[in-house]
């Protein structure tokens, strides 16, 4: 893994602000689901906050994002307003997609979030299409495509990287390698030692970084974005990370050896990033203010989600085609 200089104060503060919103949101979702206030399938993101926060800090709001069912961190980091996102997770009419997408299918074009897919590996070919549009349009946008290590075992990954490279598409394939595909360890499911090797095999510029280190992740993200904007083509970033709460909520992570989990928790990126801010002479009070602001946002958003109405049942006839379907 590359040694990178510490990112500057403002960048790290930005990353922390996004990452803390993600962490607190994840905690709140798990609490509310546990308390029976929300009945949804939830894929926890605790542990992967810094990867997304650093990646999205390196792109603009109008750059595109394609992500997956474990996508709360990506969506918040990209800037979807919490109220809209919470309401959609809860299936309410006030949500980003009027309650018709749900947690696994978030779209929010205003912040560039174009697709959230529940099908492993499917986002990569679509990300190419968005990037192709940008290339033809010469609009300078990049597309970030997030997926896990497990997705690199499906054919779409290989087809998409190959096409992106031959067409030099402005796309960043961000593999958030949390070392487990559902309940199976990467070593038991993946023939190569790293995901980076797979990218290299397909001729794509590929890097492997500690995604849990904000500065290292941000540097890799920024470089990939500049490479793409310059018209040089795609980058595969293999960002090493970990998830602390299983594949989906309720999963006890019984398949993760205790020692591995213990070590991963010691390496929790959030307290590390917080300490880095303190080391940069950002005051405890300033950090606490960020955390308080995020907590307030979440309080308001979660209450908004609970208070909002469900969509009317007849809504199913709308948006199937460009005309309403007859009753």
């Amino acid at each position, binding site marked *: 893994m590359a040694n990178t200089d510490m990112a500057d104060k403002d960048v790290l503060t930005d990353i922390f602000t996004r990452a803390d919103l993600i962490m607190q949101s994840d905690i709140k979702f798990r609490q509310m689901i546990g308390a029976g206030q929300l009945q949804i399938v939830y894929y926890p993101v605790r542990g992967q906050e810094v990867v997304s926060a650093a990646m999205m800090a390196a792109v603009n709001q109008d750059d595109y994002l394609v992500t997956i069912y474990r996508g709360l961190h990506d969506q918040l980091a990209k800037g979807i307003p919490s109220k809209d996102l919470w309401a959609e997770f809860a299936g309410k009419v006030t949500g980003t997609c009027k309650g018709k997408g749900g947690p696994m*299918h978030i*779209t*929010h*074009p205003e912040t560039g979030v174009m697709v959230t897919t*529940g*099908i492993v590996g499917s986002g990569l*070919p679509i990300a*190419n299409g968005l990037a192709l549009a940008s290339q*033809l349009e010469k609009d300078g946008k990049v597309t970030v495509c997030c997926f896990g290590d497990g997705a690199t075992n499906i054919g779409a990954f290989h087809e998409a990287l190959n096409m992106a490279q031959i067409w030099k598409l402005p796309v960043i394939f961000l593999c958030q390698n949390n070392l487990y595909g559902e309940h199976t360890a990467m070593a038991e499911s993946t023939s190569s030692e790293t995901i980076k090797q797979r990218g290299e095999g397909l001729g794509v510029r590929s890097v492997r970084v500690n995604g849990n280190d904000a500065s290292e992740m941000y540097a890799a993200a920024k470089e990939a974005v500049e490479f793409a904007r310059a018209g040089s083509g795609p980058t595969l970033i293999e960002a090493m990370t970990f998830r602390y709460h299983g594949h989906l909520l309720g999963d006890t992570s019984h398949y993760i050896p205790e020692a591995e989990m213990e070590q991963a928790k010691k390496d929790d990126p959030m307290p590390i990033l917080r300490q880095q801010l303190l080391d940069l002479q950002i005051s405890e009070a300033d950090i606490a203010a960020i955390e308080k602001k995020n907590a307030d946002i979440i309080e308001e958003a979660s209450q908004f989600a609970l208070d909002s109405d469900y969509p009317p049942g007849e809504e199913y006839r709308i948006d199937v085609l460009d005309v309403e379907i007859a009753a």
Partner: protein
Amino acid sequence: MSDDNKPEEIMFAQALNMAMNKAMADDPKVILLGEDIADKQGGGVFKVTAGLSAQYGTERVRSTPISEQAIVGAAVGSALVGYKPVAEIMLMNFITVAMDQLVNHAAKLRFMSGGQTSVPLTIRTTTGAGTGLGGQHSDMLEAWLAHVPGLKVVAASNPADAYGLLYSSIMDDNPVVFIENTPGYFVKGPAPAPDHTVPLGKASVPREGTDISLITYGSGVSRCHAAAEKLAADGVSAEIVDLRTIAPWDEETVFTSVAKTKAAVVVHEAVKSFGTGAEISSRIHEELFSDLKAAVGRVGSGYAPVPFSPTIEKAWMFNDDDVVREAKKILG
């Protein structure tokens, strides 16, 4: 060759080429993607896209790797942000490789996004039995696609319709699968005027009759014309309804025809069981049961993969005599 007395005739493949040419000229957002479609690679295996890359450049007419998921995915992604991609999936059986992109994404993203995005792509794909292409290059899979809410499915039966329907498909704001007929590429028909249009969702009645309605599309239309001639020789007046759009299909035209004839056979090349004929037949019964002289009949191909050897392929495949037999059975 045209002379002054006969209308000019063109082949299917030319009509399709003309439709894409017009769409590309009319709208700079129309792009083509597919294996070997640019002129350097031959302008498509059946030459349907010949000359278009020369005219519009290889930025807009892109030969792709043999990667159906990546092709359809690129079409989905570009369509989400305003492009009107036309992706050629060389043969319909290869759509199976891209079904995830088509079914889970192209068809559903408008709905799942609550209408914030749409996917105005067109998949052009060819298929059809009768020329010994065997089990993986000739299947008719339209019933699968018609079963997916959010997808439109189109099949033309003559060059002029092909021109109008393909143009409408490209300009439609929904994902459309446009099914071409491989043995029919070089069949000729009257040339369309450049401004000829055919709306999606609207059937035609190419032959009027009073005794029985033959409801069909694509390669079934020429079989039904042949069957109608044979029936006429026996004193039976058959009307033909060419659906042109399989999903959503034109119930009004079908019901109007059957309300008049009070008898119907649904005819398609696809395997009969669980085919589109089952749906159409069922809808006719629901709407017109008490008016019918007899239960609606169905003609399709046999319950088997498309066979290779010409003797087995011929025995398996639907034909005009099957239509005649079914019509006579219904009319007693």
